[in-house]
């Protein structure tokens, strides 16, 4: 999942970035309004964490002004407003402008994380924090994966890939989609790194299990097997 963090306080950026990356998020950072605006408009993020007080904005404007413009121009990315303004009026103003969530500083990192996860789920019309696919269960809150009641240990990157596939279960996700949502702006790996991670993932969740859940659509991309997909023929 790719998150844009628009925040001008360096220590906060550093901490959140580290925390989110450790949770498997791809994190892009913008330290002022200008940069944030450009990034939000050019990249499809899963969640944008937006600070209200930002430098390099026109006079009397803040993060909410950015948000308003985005919404007006049809950008429907989930936005979590993160701000030091704590009053109810500020919260109401933020939510009414088009924010999906509102978190005031200081905050606990786990709460921020949970809210971001909730926004991600909401983005895929998924209420249940546990994603299921045949005998595969993905607990998005605990970030644990079980296949046939056996715990499967994944790296954050592998987990993120699996989660992304699970959120799009039954649909083909292209490599560029994967690339776009799982890797941040500084990743300079070529696109075949996706194939590498798919192989890692298959080794961990499909190797000794049936049916194979990660399907390859040649020429298109990959997909997690949906309920409608016929099970693969048993190996001869």
């Amino acid at each position, binding site marked *: 999942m790719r998150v844009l963090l628009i925040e*001008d*306080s*360096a*220590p*906060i950026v*550093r*901490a*959140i970035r*580290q*925390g989110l990356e*450790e949770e498997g998020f791809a994190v892009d950072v913008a*330290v*002022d309004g200008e940069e944030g605006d450009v990034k939000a408009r050019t990249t499809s993020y899963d969640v944008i964490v937006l600070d209200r*007080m*930002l*430098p*390099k904005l026109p006079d009397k404007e803040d993060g909410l002004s950015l948000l308003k413009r985005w919404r007006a121009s049809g950008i429907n990315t989930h936005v979590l407003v993160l701000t*030091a*303004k*704590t*009053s109810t009026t500020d919260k109401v103003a933020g939510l009414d402008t088009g924010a999906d969530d509102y978190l*005031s*500083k*200081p*905050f*606990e*990192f*786990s709460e*921020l994380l949970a809210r971001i996860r909730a926004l991600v789920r909401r983005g895929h019309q998924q209420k249940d924090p546990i994603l299921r696919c045949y005998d595969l269960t993905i607990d998005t809150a605990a970030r644990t994966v079980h296949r046939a009641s056996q715990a499967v240990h994944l790296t954050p990157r592998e987990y993120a890939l699996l989660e992304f596939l699970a959120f799009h279960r039954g649909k083909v996700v292209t490599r560029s989609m994967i690339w776009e949502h799982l890797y941040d702006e500084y990743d300079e790996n070529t696109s075949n790194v996706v194939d590498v991670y798919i192989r890692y993932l298959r080794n961990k969740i499909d190797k000794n299990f049936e049916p194979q859940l990660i399907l390859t659509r040649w020429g298109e991309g990959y997909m997690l097997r949906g309920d409608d997909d016929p099970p693969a023929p048993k190996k001869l």
Partner: protein
Amino acid sequence: MRSIRQSLTLYLFVLLAATLGVVWVVLDQFTARILDARETADRDLIRTRHDARSREELARVDQTLLDQARLLGKIVQERERERFHTEWVRHSAALSVVPMTFGPIPFGTNPLGQLAWTATGNTLGTFPRFNPRLTQLLRIHFANLPIPDEYIQHFDDENRSVEYFQINTAAGRDWRSSSLGTRKLPFDPTELDGKPADPTKPSETVNVPDWKIGPAVIGPENENVRRVVYQMPHLSGTATFGRFWSRVPSGGGREERKEERPPPPGFSGSSRSLVGSWTSWALTGIGSPPPGLSSGSPPTPPPTPTLDSLPRLYIQCARPQAAIDAVLTRFAAERDQELTQLATEISEARYSVRVWAAAIALVAFLGVALGGPVLVSRGLRPVGKLSDAVSRVSERDFKLDHDGTDLAIELVPIHDRLVQTLDMLQRAFSREKQAVADISHELRTPIAALMATIDVTLRKPRTSEQYRATLEECRVISKQLGQLVERIMTLASLDAGNDRTMLSRTDVADLASGCVAVIRPLAAANSITVEVRADDPMELELDTDPGKLREVLMNLLHNAVEYNKPGGTIELRARRLPNSVVLEVQDTGIGMSAEVKDKIFERFYRADPSRHSTGVHAGLGLAIVREYVTRLEGTIVVESAPGSGSLFRVTLPAQPAASLTTDPADESLTTAM
């Protein structure tokens, strides 16, 4: 708590009462004076009229008495002359022939006149002497003076019973009217005697009127009467008789003259008068010399009598004083009645004036009682409106719900002041709110950073290097937090007035170089050069608070670094002016617009709210600078334009530098010391 309405109404009543009181007093005094004047005038008029009337009545009575006396006298005289003539004829045979010395005697109708001529003709130039026979005849005639009652019969009728008549003769006989009865009018012939006005001038004669009016007392009852005594010769004189009469030395005074007035008071007290003398002479006998005709002193009797010694008749007419007094009393009663009436009228007029005044006062009081509260309410209506508007002011917007257009002119200043105050309050309130929000915001951000850092670190087991890095991070954040709190506390302390300025002799040039030395590494990190240009250090000494001044300079230099372009320069200048020291910090930074320039000294304001720069001023640096400069009684101004850098100029007051007025030798001496 007093009600304006009640107070005003009360004041209105008090004012009305005072005014009415004054008007009452003035009116009362005025009318009293007018009425008094009128009363006095009327009273005087009535008295004068009464006096005049009484006098006229008295005069009329006197005149009546005198007229009647004269009338009676005339009648008596006529009768007497007839009688004397008869007697003359009867006695003519006994008269001797009188020698005629000059001219034919014009024997006229008056035998006595003829007799007189004969008596005086022979002794021209000498005092005449009477013929003894004639004298004899006269004595007989006068001694037997019968006055028949019928002479005056017609006076003595019932109609005039209140009047008394009495005729006295020189011979002592008298006749009294029946009204007198047995009583007598007192008679003293000397009352009508003349006497010389001045004894030392015997040649002068006195004018003795032939009548006298005065009070008298009659009878055993001592009845007071008004009486006129009229004297006249027993025998009426003809023209010739009169001429003869005039040659008598005292004759001039005997001519009848009508006297309108009663005789002067001194007359009644006359002593021995000429008439009296002659009368007594006639009574006592012709042989003795007549008195008073000599040129000597009065006691010396004249040697011989004259024809003037003819006996006289005294006619008295009297009226009872009681009758006169009755009239006068009636007059007085009428006068008193008029006076009483006048007094009644006056007091009635006074009363009616008072009643009117009271009625007017009552009406006025009623008017005020009814109209006063209405008036006051009406007058207070704008105040009520304003008060309503004030009561509707809420802390949400501090807006006065009244535009002040229909306010009374007296309330406009209050309204304006109220609006100003509310405006100030609103600004202060929102500023305060903003300050609290700003402070909390500024505090929350580093705390959030701290918490996020710690949270993220604690999520997983870390290596000791990672923990160390996290702790370093936290330390930096905490330090910034501490600085921020310090600044906020500084401002709060300045606001609370707890801060005290510690003045001491400060070398500004030294202080400036110290600040530059501190800032230089930071500037060098941004490849900015810092220069100091100061005047002679001696001239830059002044009494100030070095701590505050250092803070000011450090803040300005920090800003200059923070908002400068890479590779720019900063120049710190210190100059001496006659009455001040000027410190200027010039940078080559981004500059600022006029709009920004107005706001940079406001708290939490940032020209560019970028927080990842060098400092953590949180928009408080320049606010603190301005507070400090104000405490140091200086001023701070900024000159700037976007893109062309900024110039902050601090002007601090200073005593005129000694070096500006003294020569360098003295200065060096001072420096050495």
